[in-house]
């Protein structure tokens, strides 16, 4: 993911709400900090903790997971699963010395372009203060 001089946030967006929300933000030409990459998934519950760890190990400074608001999941309860996984993973990350604030789960509906822009900007601002993770430095 390039050099470690600039913040990098991976934003996993669910196909049904938050990806459309990102589209809405773009259509409305909202100002968004550019240091993020969107990965579109069918549901926030598709984001296995394994993928989040993979993102961090490959150089992401932060991971943002956006799904449908509670009660609105296209698959009925996927976002509740995501909520549980992220809550437990945050505690685990802390034990690995990775600040839990680097991982954020939130909800964005299809018409909440402004909310999408705000969450992305906030997350990038947070990781900018924390700096790069620098995992896997060769150690003996």
């Amino acid at each position, binding site marked *: 993911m390039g050099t470690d001089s600039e913040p990098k946030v991976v934003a996993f967006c669910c196909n049904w709400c938050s990806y459309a929300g990102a589209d809405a933000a773009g259509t409305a030409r909202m100002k968004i900090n550019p240091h993020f990459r969107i990965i579109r998934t069918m549901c926030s*519950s598709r984001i*296995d903790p*394994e993928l989040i760890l993979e993102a*961090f190990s490959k150089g992401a400074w932060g991971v943002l997971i956006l799904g449908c608001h509670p009660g609105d999941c296209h698959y009925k309860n996927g976002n*509740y699963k995501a*909520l549980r996984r992220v*809550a437990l993973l945050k505690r685990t990350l802390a*034990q690995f010395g990775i600040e839990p604030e680097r991982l954020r789960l939130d909800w964005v509906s299809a018409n909440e372009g402004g909310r999408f822009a705000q969450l992305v900007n906030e997350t990038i601002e947070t990781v900018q203060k924390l700096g790069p993770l620098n995992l896997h*430095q060769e150690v003996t």
Partner: protein
Amino acid sequence: MSKPKVAFYWCASCGGCEEAVIDLNEDLLTVADAVDIVFWPVALDFKKKDVEAMEDGSIAVSFINGAIRTSEQEEMVHLLRRKSGLVVAFGSCAHLGGIPGLANFHNKAEIFERVYKTVPTVTNPEGIYPQTETKVPEGTLTLPEFYDTVKTLDQTIDVDYYLPGCAPPPDLIMGAVQAILAGELPERGTVLAPDKALCDTCPLAEYKPEKLSMSQIKRPHEVLHDPKQCFLAEGIICLGPATRSGCGERCINAGMPCRGCFGPTREVKDLGAKALSSIASLIGIEEEEEMTEEELEKALDNIVDPAGLFFMYSLPSSVLRRRRIK
């Protein structure tokens, strides 16, 4: 025709894998008849120089157990790799890092301080720690370098096959030995165990409810386990959903939940993350729409050490490999 030469070696391990070889019982005699054991420090008096004197590639197979945490272990496995046709990572520690791999939540300085200074049974006011070189009147004494990070065997040398388990069960060991002797080996890099999750072969599977929900998480000592009940249904975390089967369900049959010593199935890279995912999604499913985030956090408080639990046997082989070095 001369018999195939076999070596056994141990690195950062508890000795349980050596026991597992002895646990072959009478089968060990069959193995001993079929092969020439040329190196086995725990049982036979061969030295490093004997191995060095062998021709490269002359050992048919080396079974190496234990994780790699010192320069001595590193040197020995490189030597054995050079001398061996096949290298089998034997047991959880060589395969995944195992229990010694939990040291990756710390570093050398913290471990030395604990072991040689602050542990209650040690008095060391001057803070004397092991050194790689110590000058004494007779000359210089040396010790291997102790590394900050524990590695798996395949993070150190090329590994051909893996025998999983803490320790590997006799039937899998014999299966592997017979396959090697007969030259009927699967694709290089294979874990020589079934590629199914433990839940698929678990004797408690028949008691598993259709819809599992863990409303309250309990630790094994807090529950009187019913031998006819799935651990997850009792609220006890069991890593069966994410762990490879083939162990003979030894822990389950002894009334203890799975802790993941067989590692993940083939398609999974990170057992800890996968197990965490599986368990988290079961928390309070029945009332998931009503459960507030505060209630969820309270339920999670009962998982006292999530990283240590989910990565108990697999930390060095996981995606993150160790605690972050800042």
